[in-house]
């Protein structure tokens, strides 16, 4: 523990890449759930310096590399949650309809003990998202659950940028009904997106014209100088979306608004996007597949507000059968710890194959976050983010026994102290601070609306 703190203190800002710990381990005789190459019986996986170096039989441990005997156990890729608010300092910058300029990268709390709890459930990567109060919310941040490192050290290196969009009731209630500004209706939501894209394109034209005129004027020193056009952070980000540099993750429920956004994106040439929640996506599965859109859904959660009444537990299976890349997400810190159970429900309800259901919490979220070249399956050359399970991860009796990120063990059931907090407030008494085990948060709130519920009352 002390070591963790010391490490934590000495990880210098800006030099985290070097300081980041990568581990080596040889896991032997496991049933390896590779995701991309079936289940491999009695197989060894060698991770060296954070990367899966070899998968095979009877591998030898290089000198100094620890071995783990996983006879009778399962090894699967670390679970990836494409929709989490696990350790955000703030979730919603809910005071404007469009806040593309804010980013969860600057709202990461690396000390949240929930990170450890998630590791204990076999999760290794999360997509830390902005909330759903705004039509265009803030940018997201893909994090590896390296508990005990700095906020910089948690970042999934070189992961593509992402951003949150939100349709339907949340933005219309917060802004239209709460603040009396557009949008009050679903029609308004569409116009907010189109209006801002148009404005952003207009800004880009003006800004580029200014910069080139300025360059000419400064070089020649004659003529009339241009009137400066200030750099605009919000419009810069919106242009990056239009240019395909940012993956859009859109909070949505109804099929009509899903179709609406695909129309809008087709008009502006936006191509890479995932519909989050998307409870009615099954109704438009062929259209989603045609557009190459992805979905990230709950296994069986609905009816928590009006727009989520029309739902089915077959959603994921229908999407999968239609060729839509679909993931199962948590949007909740407790569910994040049991995403394997959530995925198994897809098998139970819709008869999706076990491997396809496993993809929904590994390879598919990786694709949706643009990190599938690094994680999401057990393949040579991919990151050593793996989990040893006591039995098949879809069995209710199985437990995650060890969780590795970059080959480094961050969770070990054998060595799992009660109090794994790394940040203790010196002003908090034991009696008040002893609720650190209280990790089961209630499910009656929409985590996407964290910090923003009160705005409804305005």
């Amino acid at each position, binding site marked *: 523990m002390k070591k963790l703190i010391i490490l934590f203190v000495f990880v210098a800002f800006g030099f985290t890449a070097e300081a980041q710990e990568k581990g080596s381990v040889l896991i032997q005789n496991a049933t390896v759930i590779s995701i991309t190459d079936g289940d491999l019986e009695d197989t060894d996986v060698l991770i060296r310096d954070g990367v899966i170096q070899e998968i095979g039989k009877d591998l030898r441990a290089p000198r100094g590399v620890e071995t783990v005997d996983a006879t009778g156990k399962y090894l699967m890729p670390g679970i990836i949650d494409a929709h989490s608010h696990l350790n955000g*300092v703030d979730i919603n*910058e809910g005071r404007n309809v469009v806040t593309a300029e804010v980013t969860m990268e600057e709202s990461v709390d690396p000390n949240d003990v929930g990170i450890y709890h998630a590791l204990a459930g076999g999760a290794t990567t999360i997509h830390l998202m902005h909330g759903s109060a705004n039509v265009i919310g803030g940018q997201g941040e893909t994090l590896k659950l390296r508990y005990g490192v700095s906020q910089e050290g948690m970042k999934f290196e070189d992961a593509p940028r992402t951003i949150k969009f939100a349709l339907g009731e949340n933005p219309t209630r917060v802004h239209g009904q709460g603040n009396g500004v557009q949008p009050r209706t679903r029609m308004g939501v569409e116009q907010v997106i189109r209006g801002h894209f148009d404005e952003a394109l207009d800004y880009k034209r003006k800004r580029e014209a200014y910069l080139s005129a300025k360059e000419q004027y400064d070089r020649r020193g004659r003529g009339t100088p241009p009137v400066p*056009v*200030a750099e605009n952070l919000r419009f810069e980000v919106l242009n990056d979306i239009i240019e395909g540099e940012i993956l859009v993750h859109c909070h949505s429920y109804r099929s009509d608004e899903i179709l609406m956004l695909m129309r809008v994106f087709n008009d502006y040439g936006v191509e890479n996007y995932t519909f989050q929640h998307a409870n009615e996506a099954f109704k438009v599965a062929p259209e989603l597949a045609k557009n190459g859109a992805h979905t990230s859904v709950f296994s069986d959660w609905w009816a928590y507000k009006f727009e989520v009444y029309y739902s089915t537990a077959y959603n994921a299976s229908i999407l999968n059968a239609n060729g839509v890349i679909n993931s199962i997400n948590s949007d909740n810190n407790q569910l994040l710890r049991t995403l394997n159970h959530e995925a198994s429900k897809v098998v139970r309800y819709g008869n999706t194959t076990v491997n396809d259901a496993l993809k929904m919490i590994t390879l598919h979220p990786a694709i949706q976050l643009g990190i599938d070249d690094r994680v999401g399956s057990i393949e040579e050359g991919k990151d050593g983010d793996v989990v040893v399970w006591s039995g098949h991860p879809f069995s209710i009796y199985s437990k995650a026994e060890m969780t590795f990120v970059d080959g480094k063990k961050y969770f070990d059931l054998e060595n799992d102290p009660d109090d794994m907090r790394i940040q203790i407030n010196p002003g*908090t008494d034991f009696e008040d601070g002893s609720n650190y085990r209280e990790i089961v948060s209630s499910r009656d709130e929409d985590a996407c609306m964290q910090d923003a519920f009160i705005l409804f009352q305005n």
Partner: protein
Amino acid sequence: MRKHILLLALLFSGFSLQAIQAQTTPAHALKNITIHNADGSVTESATIVWRDGVIEAVGKNVTIPFDAFEIDGGDSLHVYPGFIDGFSTWGSPEPPRNLPELDNPGDPPYDRAGIQPERKPSVLLTEDKTFEAGMKAGFTSAALYPNGYMLPGQVEVFYLAPATESIGLLKENLALAGSFEPAPGGWGNGAYPSTMMGVMAQFRQVMFDATALQQHMKYYAQNPEMPAPKRDQVLEALFPLVNKTTPLYFEVDTKEHIERLLKLQDEFGFSAVVVSGKEAYAKSAELKRRNIPVLASIDFTEAPDWYTKMNKAEESDKEDEEESSEEMEEISEEEQSYRDKRIEAWKAEVTNIKKLMDAGVSVGYASAGLELKDLSKKLEILLDEGGLTESDAVKLMTSNTASILGLGNTLGTLTKGKNASFTVFDKAMSEDKAKVLHSISNGTIHEFEGN
């Protein structure tokens, strides 16, 4: 010709008038005192002579000028260089309450967003009993800024006086104040930015806007045929930050917040001073590398009761020992492990300043919200548990702070040519119930006897 003579005559009279004035301003001499210097040394039976707010002589064998008004300390008074508060809102008007409802909270006017870099304490200073209380605690000067939010205003340094109208401006345009504080109004009536990530983004945006306005003004000055810039006092107040000519005094405590500030510094290149910085020790190497000083808060968390009790028990006789060990037995293993971690966290907090000093970071003092009534209690923690000696603490609050504020040539030590700002105590500060009798601020004597 005639004009010339007139001018000459004027010049002459001017000169002579000034000379006479200089002659007639009497000196003050305080003799037979014990001086506690900022470097930790102590001079006994010393004298200090000052005139017009400037120290003329100080030391053991000082000739007192014939015109000096003499005060005899009778070898019982203790003189310390005036303490300097490196960052404080003394005399600031309270931020307005009952904010009017906004038509569009997403695009509020600058003041509602907490962006007020044009505000100057020298313009806004109001009556505040804290000034006198501060002098009674040994402070003679302070860097003040207006109470506010993300960019609350400018930092200026003042000589203190009990009455607000007598407070003298020593240095303006010292710095801009900043924090990650979101816009006021809370849930009911808040505005953008309402989160820390919003503040980060909005900080960047106003810097971009100020950059563009400055460029426009520059172009316009040379090309009056072009459209005129829309002048804006808020953005114009940010020009020195854009141009990196004024530092940003930024109030941050956690390691993560300090990292966020460093990120902004990387983007805009301004020089920064960390204010408060309770976890600054965790970034000491980086702060040193970047040459960022810390105006540190000593507003420590109170030690846990059981820790205080345990310490007392250790100090007192064996009689109490039994009692305390009984108490210890009642604790579960789990609670004991929590206590160990908690005290580790508490010690990390109180040794912050010491660790920064050891790492070679320049550390000064800022009340940064600490109330004066708590000052002596917190100083006690700093000395007992924080690893600082009394002279370290004096240095922290005098010469260290002065040099961070860029006023090392004027304030912070009692030497010839420096400003006459010091405090006279009835006994050494470290002794029980030491009381301030006089405070000399910029050469003016303020008496607090009978208080």
